[in-house]
């Protein structure tokens, strides 16, 4: 066997194993129901802000506690807790993408991505993380 063929085979094997080892990292957009089934596992949930329920954020009490309610694609509404500051213009968001896991009686999220209707021609997105 020629050395170049060996190298090529090793290269392909390494690439495949790298990619396969990473597949587990790709989360699927999911719903609260799935996240509740597997508590403590990280999921990404896309939903809309439930504006009928109150949002909790009081920087003076705790600047790292922001709680709100989100309705997921299947229409289930759950309380979400974000350990951080409230993103600007959160009320105006059209949809929110939450990353985190279900712990206890609330979805604990580590990252919020909000999509706001913008006065610019195109949508702008912001990330609030940590």
């Amino acid at each position, binding site marked *: 066997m*020629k*050395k*170049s063929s060996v*190298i090529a085979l090793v*290269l392909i094997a*390494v*690439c495949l194993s*790298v*990619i396969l*080892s*990473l597949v587990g*990292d*790709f*989360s*699927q*957009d999911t719903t609260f129901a799935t996240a509740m089934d597997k508590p*403590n596992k*990280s*999921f*990404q949930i896309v939903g809309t802000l439930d504006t009928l329920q109150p949002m909790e954020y009081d*920087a*003076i009490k705790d*600047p*790292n506690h922001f709680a709100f309610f989100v309705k997921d694609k299947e229409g289930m509404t759950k309380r979400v807790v*974000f*350990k*951080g*500051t*409230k*993103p*600007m*213009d959160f009320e105006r968001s059209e949809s929110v*993408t939450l*990353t*985190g*896991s279900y*712990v206890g009686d609330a979805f*604990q999220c*580590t*990252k919020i*991505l909000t*999509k*706001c209707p*913008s*006065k*610019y*021609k*195109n949508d*702008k*997105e*912001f*990330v609030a*993380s*940590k």
Partner: protein
Amino acid sequence: MNPTFQGEHLLPGQIGHFLVLLSFISSLVATIAYIFSAQAKLLTNQEDWRKLGRVSFFVHFASILGVFVSLFYIIFTHRFEYHYAWSHSSTVLPFKYLLSCFWEGQEGSFLLWLIWHGLLGCIVAVNAKKWEAPVMAAVSGVQLILGATIIGLYFFGEKIGSSPFALLRHQMQGAPIFQQPNYLEFIKDGNGLNPLLQNYWMVIHPPILFMGFAATLIPFAYTIAGLWKKDFTDWVKPTLSWGLFGVAVLGLGICMGGAWAYESLSFGGYWAWDPVENASLVPWLTLVAGVHTLNIYKHSKFSLKTTLLFFILTFFLIIYSTYLTRTGILGDTSVHAFTGEGASLSIHLIGFLIIIAIISFWLFFKNSKAIASPQKEEATWTREFWMYIGSLVLLISAIQITFTTSIPVWNKMFGLKLAPPADPMYHYNRIQIWIAVVLAVLIGITQFFKYKNTEIKKVVKDQIATLIITTIISLIIGFHQHINQIQAIFIMVTAVYAVVANIGYLIKIKVKEVTKWGASIAHFGFGLMLLGILLSSFNKHVISKNKLNIDLGLQGKTDQETHQENQQNILLFRNTPAEMSDYTLTYLGDSVVAPNHFYKIQYTKFDKQTNKQLEKFILYPLAQINPKMGLISSPDNKKYWDRDVFTYVTKTLDKSSVPDTMQYTKQTVKPNDTLYFKNGYLIYRGINKNVSNPNYIPEQGDIALSTQLDEYNLDGKTNTVEPVYFIRGNMQNRLEDTLHDYNLYVRIAKINMDKENTVDIEFKQPAAENDYVVMKAIVFPHINILGIGTVIMTLGSILALFRRLKQTK
């Protein structure tokens, strides 16, 4: 049907549009002429076509420059009848940011790219000699396709490209405002520039990055030319020079992007594995790989085909990255505020990619048989073998990054619903750390091997000293920085090895010839960069919650830990000191320099035993409360030689929303009387007839007086307040003055007109609880090593380039 509109200046747009068409047609003529020249059998025909091609290309470049000047004129003179000026600029924009308007929009950035292609093309045309025709045919062809993105014309009912000179009233047809012939009188200002781009890095980073993009075209064009003419004899030197040029410029552009992210974005770092960052990194990796395999070919005749494939891949990836970042396909996955320009650009760029692929692979498979490969196998202990392995490692890195970044593309192609990794730092680092480890080792050792054959014993002997020094330095750093994690230890040791081995190589092997230092210096810089990345990220810690040694991103962690980590914001009331790590923090107040809102945060450090003040500094993190984009927070940095203390605002108080129920206190004073407030006192100095308060704008017939009050605190006199009292049209008016640092409001209630010059002063100081800021502070240790490494790597690449240029002559 078409009413005449008042106040429109259509001429610059018409000139600009004409030049766009001229540039398009001249690039078409240049492409055809150069192709004929390259294909012509007779020398005279070759020369005639070549001359026509060159003239057309010069016309093309000149008209692209003309387009740029026309568009700049429109932006500079604020002609908001043009859509581009209206959507990307405004009258308040400072001059230095007018250029940034070019790269906010799609048309402007393509224009910039075309300019760089044109400039590099002209240099190639003049210098390439026998390579001019085939290389420039490829360059002109690319200009033709790329230039079509800004023509904005309809062909067979399909709109090709979008013109930067489109009028606002055409872009927004049907809006009622355009029924009025004098509509321009109502359009007072443009939409303005994205505040994130209003930063000095954003003035220089995009042009450099685009120049790097443009530089990848030339090795690609030489690859096409070489395959076309089946000739690789004196092809290596120009290709290598342009490849090195691309490595230096594109690398610099990417690093500047990191510097911008670090200094003006608040995601707390210089690199986030964001798709837009990845999209420019991947072509750089393949270009670096191509330059290395070309070096192998130069010395040993191996790996020419690999080199050609790398250069084709690099240019393909540049266009692919444009497709990813400009067409909006990334959608939810990127923080970069690039815009989706719609389906037509998508089709345009996909078409471009298909054309590149078809032409390149057709030429490659048709003509690569003509490439003679050496019959014998490469020996294992040679420089070329290990350089080749290094290039393949770079390729693996590129494949992994591309695979994950392209998730939205896979979703679209195969109808999947994959979401990108929830924790990109962990996801990419997991693989890329090991790639960096392997690269660092190869960078250190490979140059000690010789081309073709190496005496392995000698190499081993050379390595003993290097390894001893590496071990000592690694132990020192490891203990000092508490590096106690397996991946981190690997990175540290190998990075130190790369640094030491490259210095050692310079000392041992070639002290005399400075021009030959390029590769070693670049590799030395790369080693330093790795070390800087490790030290700044491994011990990066958030001090606003007083937690030390939190590892971010280098290892997996449970969600519980992540939640704890997220409690990283600290609340500061105005003038109420709070402890944070070793520092005492005080929020002193805010000030507004439109459009920026600065928050004044004082850091002091005291000796724990003696309580003596060791240091004191003030940071001014800024926030823009942008009506369109919400809170835009930009950090401020305290730079030490060994760390940065990085501070940014995460939540601000909207003062207008806090009800102010505080009553004014009234006091009658004569000159040199004192008024006390919470943090100090004011001394009334008397009445001024010449009012100097900048907020007072005099009008004719005003009778205006002001009172000067000097403010004192523990440090002595610090400020002056000057409330104004004026009579305008029989009405009494008061202009309040404010000491923002103390939230102190002062106004004149009454001027008593008595012998003692007494006045009634009213003042109030609402409670500090009504004024606060929430902020976060992060320490980046040894970030300077990363910066220095970047500069050294760029300098090394440039040095290597100069060496090749000298050889070319």
